[in-house]
């Protein structure tokens, strides 16, 4: 469904990611793992159109996304839940959700979409009128994921959804992700929590120094010696 075809990109002269090749099939959950500075967020920024790659192309089904503006990519069905939540802090929860759901496809379905995310995270209903900036980190992450879901995405890109959260909340977030996966959502998950993400992912890619060094099924990567040594501390 989402294919990244030999993408090279960066901010200055030196590329941060090189020749990245990655496939996310329809209904699949794919984990992208790697340490700090490996280029995970850069790749997501390329997919979302925030940075234009120096080489390579990005496709959603048969549509090329590479030359499109960020808002056009959202219209096509790719939404990103950015690292650090990036909610609109002085807007309430409801307004944040509405901003997620303003693309052409979602606009017709605001009421059912709202209902769906409020069932997934009941806190969204009880704190509807609260300013997003005053929520706890875990609540903010729930709003951020829900805001992404409001876009009625074909593919959702999640950048470090468990970053800085307590183990309890991480459990809640991952439970919600498996629920979304069961509902058939296509997910590209960027995570430092390698164990949890490889458990729910069909497929995984390991990114090191801007290159994919390893890929395979979630299960095989969990058992891979190199992954164990570098990311699982075993």
């Amino acid at each position, binding site marked *: 469904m989402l294919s990244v075809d030999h993408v090279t990109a960066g901010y200055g002269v030196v590329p941060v990611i090189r020749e990245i090749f990655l496939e996310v099939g329809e209904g699949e959950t794919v984990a992208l793992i790697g340490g700090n500075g490996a280029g995970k967020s850069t790749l997501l920024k390329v997919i*979302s159109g*925030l940075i234009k790659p120096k080489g390579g192309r990005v496709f959603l089904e048969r549509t090329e996304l590479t030359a499109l*503006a*960020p*808002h056009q990519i*959202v*219209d096509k069905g790719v*939404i*990103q839940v*950015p690292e650090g939540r*990036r*909610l*609109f*802090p*002085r*807007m309430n929860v409801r*307004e944040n959700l*509405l*901003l*997620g759901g*303003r*693309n052409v496809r979602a606009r017709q379905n605001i009421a059912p979409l709202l209902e769906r995310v409020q069932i997934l995270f009941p806190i969204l209903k009880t704190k509807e009128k609260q300013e997003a900036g005053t929520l706890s980190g875990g609540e903010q992450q729930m709003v951020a994921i829900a*805001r992404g879901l409001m*876009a009625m995405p074909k593919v959702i890109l999640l950048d470090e959804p468990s970053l800085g959260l307590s183990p309890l909340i991480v459990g809640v977030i991952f439970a919600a992700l498996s629920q979304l996966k069961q509902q058939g959502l296509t997910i590209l998950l960027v995570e430092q929590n390698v164990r949890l993400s490889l458990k729910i992912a069909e497929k995984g890619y390991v990114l090191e120094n801007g290159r994919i060094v390893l890929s395979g099924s979630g299960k095989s990567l969990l058992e891979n010696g190199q992954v164990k040594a570098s990311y699982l501390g075993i």
Partner: protein
Amino acid sequence: MKMDVSVALGAVIQGVMMGAIYGLIGLGITMVFAVTGMLNFAHGDFMSLAMYLCLALHTAFNLDPYLSLFVTVPAFFVLGLLLYHFFFRRTLKAEILMVVQLTLGMVFIIENGVLMVFGPDYRSVPNFLLTTVVSMGDMFAVRGTYLVTFLVGGAVGFGLYWLIESTDLGRQIRAIAQDREAAQLMGVNVARVQMLIFAIGIALLGLAGPLLTSILTMEPYFGLHLTLFAFITFVMGGVGNFLGTLIAGYILGVTESMGMLYLGGYYGAAVPYAIFVLLLIFRPHGILGTK
């Protein structure tokens, strides 16, 4: 004694009425700043330009300033789109001083252009309400022109505030102001909103100018004075705070007319600035500003 009270009350009311327009002019600055981070030093000069356009329309076609609104508002909206597309947009990625240079350059072009075309004299354009006085009870009376200015300026000012707080476009504006990149990721067409808001900001001057042609006397260099007033409401309200800007407009209007009433002349004209400085000493982040 009753006379004094009624004179003071009259001045307050006149100040409130002017304040509606000051808030409106400032709101343009606040909105543009919120979505682009740009400050337009030629803001007041564009308003001055709208007033001179009224003068021209009045001279050429004997058009009442209130009717010129139907020309100036759409014309200035289009002017805003063009200015943004050809000039302002290009400074977005540049250093902040670029837009200062650009707009100060526009100040000189507009002011000297006006001087060349209309000459250095003080001018005003009468409208059909010039001699109308509306009395409210037996305490005071207001001039029709002030009343219209207040009603239109107030309605448009608070209408825009409602738009910002309660509509999809308003949410997009606030989203861009609070986190531009996150707004992009949610599918907000940032470039389009920026251009639209800039054009609305200029169109507001096309609205404010004609409303004031019979109240203020214009001269080629008075745009900078208007810009200063707009910047004061922008800062006094709490930088980037929409409601604060509108409220600051009223404060500015009232302090100006009270200053004129009780001190008059140069000292009177200094009162709004003095109040502004005092306010910033006690509330450095403005009336509704935070942090």
